[in-house]
């Protein structure tokens, strides 16, 4: 039976069919659905871990115990999981272990455009890269076989266009693997120097063997077409190349992107005229060709920035583009915005009103940086707001402490914000940390986390008590505010900035998009009272706009959060009937 599946759903199906028992992940676009779909199979234990390092170590533990395990993350998540990854390479595996990493060329939903292939090279682990959903499923199974045969973790690299594209997949049955008896093997799994020294040569030999596998494996394949030109590519680039050239050129499609083969590349090069490498982001295949002495053209024609498509390929090869229409009218950009009723808005309004410097973090609230709120000063990586604020205050002194805060979501705080808070308490800065607790991991599409009281299956789970956690870290001043209450927000923020003590303000209100949150009747504008002062427009609420010099509220969008009613000095915005 064939089914249309997202690349990520196909990976989950592959996990099921490969008999995987344990999957632990932290959500991150474009990798999230791998674990969400895997959780739909009762035969796989799935969980959201607090961060990718934890997830990767859970997968390690499961592998050590002898079952097939996996973890999934976005490219920047692999930075967090890099620590276990590099030594996992030395220990190898017991049950097969596969790490899924989803790169985001063009940064549809990311803060950088890093190329995860560098990690496979640096950690000396094999990496596979599928080019559609059917391959995604097949490569999952191949990855587990390689993992167990060569005693190595394997990385499967996805990218946005594979992860979030649906294509037909043939479903097969699950292969169960019995739980083996546990056998202690300290020389292999205790990576103290004496053992690690013995494992490193194994790792080098293993890389050589897997490179040899790549010479003959069907994962790397030559498609002979016209021989005037040859193109080496992998992943989504293969699809763009085939779209433009069909069978008029010859293609070497690489499924194993680390380690790269040598002989098939040399043979391929010998059989074609001019040789090109088409790869998104960095010129890694091209560098390999340079190293093995095969002349090729790559980054000379193709950028290492952004993602490609058919247009990019045609342009690079000087081929004509299809005719199209161009418009003179400039269409205004439509950036993503905080939703109507977003609990973050009231808090950001308060920070902007008092011109408070605010170090931001990763989540929906990054949108607070946009017009008209301009409420953020920085966004670096998960958790960096809290530790960054401490550094900012240590550098700026008491003056800085009085007018600087940071904001971090509940999930991001659990991920890596709390270690920063330990540092605030331990090394004593009078920092004001605001936790935006909207009771969900929002931006990635509503995943549960350790503070929400539910697990990935939606079953009740223990909820971390944020107040108690902050107290136990050593923060005495922990306040809770409702971000829909502007007056309360303002008072508490100003008070906590003023005191000479570190403090945490928990801005608590569930995300408006959660199913259990019921909208209130929309507010209305009394046109007689509205003087057109545009004060309400400072909120940046997508439900409020200006028509004929008066505010107007889109009743289909407004959820009656009433933040704007508190703001209007003329009482022109009236609460809906309730």
């Amino acid at each position: 039976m064939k089914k249309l599946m997202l690349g990520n759903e196909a990976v989950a199906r592959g996990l099921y069919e490969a008999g995987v028992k344990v999957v632990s992940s932290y959500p991150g676009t474009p990798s999230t659905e791998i674990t969400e779909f895997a959780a739909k199979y009762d035969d796989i234990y799935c969980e959201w871990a607090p961060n990718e390092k934890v997830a990767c170590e859970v997968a390690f533990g499961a592998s050590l115990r002898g079952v097939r395990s996996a973890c999934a993350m976005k490219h920047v998540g692999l930075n967090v999981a890099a620590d276990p990854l590099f030594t996992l390479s030395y220990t190898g595996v017991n049950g097969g272990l596969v790490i899924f990493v989803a790169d985001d060329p063009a940064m549809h939903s990311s803060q950088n455009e890093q190329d995860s292939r560098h990690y496979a090279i640096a950690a000396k682990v094999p990496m596979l890269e599928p080019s559609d959903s059917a391959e995604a499923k097949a490569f999952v199974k191949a990855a587990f076989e390689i993992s167990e045969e060569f005693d190595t973790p394997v990385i499967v690299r996805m990218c946005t266009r594979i992860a979030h594209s649906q294509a037909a997949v043939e479903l097969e049955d699950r292969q169960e693997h019995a739980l083996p008896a546990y056998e202690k093997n300290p020389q292999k799994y205790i990576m103290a120097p004496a053992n690690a020294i013995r494992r490193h040569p194994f790792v080098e030999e293993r890389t050589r063997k897997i490179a040899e596998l790549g010479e003959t494996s069907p994962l790397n394949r030559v498609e002979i077409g016209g021989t005037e030109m040859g193109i080496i590519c992998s992943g989504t680039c293969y699809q763009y190349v085939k779209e433009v050239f069909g069978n008029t050129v010859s293609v070497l499609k690489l499924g194993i992107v680390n380690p790269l083969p040598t002989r098939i590349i040399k043979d391929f090069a010998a059989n074609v005229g001019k040789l090109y490498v088409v790869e998104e982001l960095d010129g890694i295949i091209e560098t390999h060709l340079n190293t093995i002495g095969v002349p090729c053209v790559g980054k000379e024609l193709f950028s290492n920035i952004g993602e490609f498509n058919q247009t990019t390929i045609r342009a690079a090869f000087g081929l004509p583009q299809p005719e199209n229409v161009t418009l003179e009218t400039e269409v205004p950009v439509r950036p993503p915005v905080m939703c109507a009723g977003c609990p973050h808005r009231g808090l950001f309004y308060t920070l902007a009103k008092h011109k408070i410097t605010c170090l931001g973090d990763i989540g929906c609230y990054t949108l607070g940086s946009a017009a008209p709120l301009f409420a953020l000063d920085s966004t670096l990586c998960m958790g960096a707001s809290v530790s960054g604020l401490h550094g900012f205050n240590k550098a700026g002194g008491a003056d800085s402490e009085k007018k600087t805060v940071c904001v971090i979501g509940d999930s991001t705080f659990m991920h890596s914000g709390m270690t920063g808070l330990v540092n605030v308490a331990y090394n004593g800065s009078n920092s004001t940390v605001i936790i935006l607790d909207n009771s969900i991991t929002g931006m990635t599409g509503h995943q549960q986390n350790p503070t929400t009281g539910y697990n990935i299956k939606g079953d009740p789970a223990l909820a971390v008590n944020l107040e108690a956690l902050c107290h136990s870290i050593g923060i005495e001043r922990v306040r809770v505010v409702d971000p829909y209450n502007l007056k309360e927000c303002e008072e508490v923020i100003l008070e906590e900035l003023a005191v000479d003590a570190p403090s945490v303000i928990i801005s608590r209100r569930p995300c408006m998009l959660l199913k259990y949150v019921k909208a209130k009747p929309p507010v209305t504008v009394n046109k007689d009272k509205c003087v057109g002062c545009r004060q309400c427009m400072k909120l940046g609420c997508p439900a409020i706009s200006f028509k004929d010099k008066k505010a107007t509220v889109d009743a289909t969008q407004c959820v009656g959060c009433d933040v704007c009613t508190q703001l209007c000095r003329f009482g022109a915005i009236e609460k809906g009937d309730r």
Partner: protein
Amino acid sequence: METKNVMIVGVGGQGSLLASKLLGALLVAEGYDVKVSEVHGMSQRGGSVVTYVRFGDNVYSPVIAQGEADYIISFEKIEAARYAANLRKDGKIIVNSQMIDPMPVITGAAQYPVDVLDELRGKGVFVDEIDALSLAQQAGNAKSVNIVLMGRLAKYFHIEKEKWIEAIKNTVKPQFVEVNLKAFELGYNF
């Protein structure tokens, strides 16, 4: 068969993913090789969203590039214009006349270009404008704009109406089938 391309564009939260799911299921049932490409995550938060649906004997690329779209189905007026460069010379635009102000318009930094569809028509582009929101409300649920527009697409498409109806029954939740079938008919017969 040469690969055919349908772009579904709109504003995050308007329900374009369900439309692409329906179209994808229909085309698979018809025996085509199909690829549907979506973007999740940040752009869904009220931003401009685009879904690519491609079908034929053998579809390679998951995305539709400049000058390739046979149809652009737009859930919002100016979103049709935003992606017009992707339309083939002889392609068709089906557009919901609903206007949703993007943030630069709300803040006063930009004007909403109300005449943009006329400019497209002036350049010889086939534009079928339809008040899908009113029709959706008439069907009984403002959220069925997506199915109204699919009904409109069905009018131009080469697949029998009955197959569409079958696909709707298989795609939407049982409690919404009735409303959506009504929405489909209203779009089809507009």
